[in-house]
């Protein structure tokens, strides 16, 4: 099984540790992982701003970089969802469709494809899990409080395999953190308020670490935590599942 490692642009530039943890975590599972070095961005920032017609360059690059792999795995529900829903390239539609079907977010790849049942990670902290919306409601990584259906959560399933980790419960299980891509600057007041409220829920319930399957939500919440001079840390779920390394 050859897996193409899809590292979103902002993770590449600002959170290389998340990329490294993702790579190591997959390697530990015996997967042959390759990072195509000419990748940039999935195009979501433009598309969500109404400029989907400007993502042609990104779309073509993505197909060129990833079409040959058996699976494509990325540590971001949001970027993976964008590819799944919106990757189209004129003249290469068969390749684009194939990619849309074989691109996976990291935690669902671990639970659904690799069927991971145990992990060697140890993380003795009180952890709050932020259910990022695009992963949860878009990729259906977890049950949603709006729907009348039995609860489940793929990220939670994995976190429960980590020794020493105590998962705290939240007052609002799946409220958006307010990052929202360019929303975080175009609607700064509401975005920041949503972030503050989300962070507060974790703090009230005793989290010392906030985790998620999307670094963008965590980047937003980290910005607020650091402004508040809080000692609470954010960690991408890959970093926890991979153990305290990198």
């Amino acid at each position, binding site marked *: 099984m050859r897996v193409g490692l899809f590292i979103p642009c902002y993770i590449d530039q600002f959170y*290389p540790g998340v990329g490294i943890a993702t790579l190591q975590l997959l390697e530990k599972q015996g997967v042959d992982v390759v*990072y195509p070095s000419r990748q940039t961005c999935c195009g979501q920032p433009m598309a969500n*701003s109404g400029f989907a017609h400007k993502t*042609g360059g990104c779309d073509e*690059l993505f197909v060129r970089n990833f079409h040959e792999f058996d699976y494509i795995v990325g540590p971001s529900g949001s970027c993976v969802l964008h590819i799944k829903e919106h990757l189209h390239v004129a003249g290469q539609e068969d390749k684009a469709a194939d990619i849309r079907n074989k691109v996976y977010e990291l935690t669902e790849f671990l639970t659904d494809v690799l069927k991971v049942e145990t992990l060697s990670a140890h993380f003795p902290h009180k952890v709050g899990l932020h259910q990022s919306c*695009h992963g949860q409601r878009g990729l259906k990584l977890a049950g949603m409080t709006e729907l009348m259906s039995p609860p489940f959560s793929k990220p939670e399933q994995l976190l429960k395999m980590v020794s020493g980790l105590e998962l705290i419960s939240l007052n609002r299980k799946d409220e958006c953190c307010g990052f929202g891509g360019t929303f975080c600057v175009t609607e700064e*007041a509401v975005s920041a308020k949503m972030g503050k*409220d989300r962070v507060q829920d974790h703090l009230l319930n005793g989290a010392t670490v906030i985790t998620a399957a999307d670094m963008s939500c965590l980047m937003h919440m980290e910005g607020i935590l650091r402004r508040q001079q809080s000692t609470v840390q954010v960690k991408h779920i890959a970093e926890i599942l991979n153990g305290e390394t990198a």
Partner: protein
Amino acid sequence: MTNTAYQSHAERATIFNEDEARVNWHDETLWWVRQKRDRAAHLIPEWESLRELASGIKDNVLSNLHDYLVSFEEQAIQNGVQVHWAADAAEHNAIVLSIVKRHGVNRMVKSKSMLTEECHLNAFLSEQGIEVIDTDLGERIVQLAEEPPSHIVLPCIHKKKEEIGDLFHEHLGTPAGNADPQFLTAAARLHLREKFLTRRVAITGVNFAVAETGEFVVCTNEGNADMGAHLADVHIACMGMEKIIPQRRHLGVFLRLLTRSATGQPITTYSSHFRKPRPGQELHIILVDNGRSRQLGRPDFRNSLKCIRCAACFNTCPVYRRSGGHSYHTAIAGPIGSILAPNLDMKEYADLPFASTLCGSCSNVCPVKIDIHDQLYKWRQVLVQEGHAPLVKKVAMAGMAFTLSLPSLYKIAGKAARWTLSHAPFAVNNKLNPWYKNREMPQVPASSFGEWYAKNRTKNK
């Protein structure tokens, strides 16, 4: 209602957020309603199939709207109802005026109707010297405050009870400082009773209109639609033409969903069926298009017309809860309003589809399964293509698209951004950067992942 200069959702939301305690109160009040909705829905084991059924019935309605409307009209006329067709808001308002004038009346009562808000009926009639008293308690409160409703089900949800006490003191003569909800409600009841007894014309909205029988159903919790309609000589029911359902038995689906989704009640206190005028009474129905045909012709947006106006999407929306209904500067606020309004005026409402994080909660609570968040995304594309994007954004997006299409340029740009953040943080950490107002910038790593990979993995291709 004063005409203020244009302010975008973001600008209005910024003002709303100046009082953080109030934002918290607004958010928690509406979250409480959302939780009530969850509890009510959990008591219905077939909730999700009920939503699917309602969605299917509404799809059928939209695909056969012409036939159902014609059938409804035929049945209604047979029932002795006078049916009017209005192409737009102006025609709707003119029809109401002509009926009122014919009866030589200059004052009337009106129960809740978002359609008349959409058509700005009150302002129009007021200019013609005709007084309209809103009889829904929440609507009467915002009317006294000279404000539009901020929520389609809970019109004065943005007002605290003390503010309502002050308003009633000023307008209804209640004792200063009395903010007891029960007392204020009793005062409103007395005040409205006099209006019901003396007004000869009553307007109501329509929640559902049944094509097979020509009857319509109005749902209220206060019975004010009934009080108005039963005491008046003339009853005018105003409805958007998408309110049609095929058969009476379909009410069993929609009435079960509507109020559970709206407020978490099993059903509204009053679900009143109107079929024919009582002897001596005139009953008018105005069927209004006002852009609905245009929306029906937009394949990506037509199913927004399935909306039954429950406002569940408002209550669940984390942006609505923290920006308030008035930030949407349109009669129907919230996520559904943000996909309906651009159909009415793209330029005026170009900001609304961007007032969302696309979290998707709205689509999940919608009782008729409108893909609201997908339509917000699609409206963004349409609005940009139609030229409604700010120049700054156009330039930024073009630059971003160019950089991200070229891996080598992307690497240089990334490196430059990281260098700036670590060596010249003042270039970013300043007032010109909206991110920095309430958040720190990410810390700069020693290298990018790409650089680390090139150094640490030999099988790099």
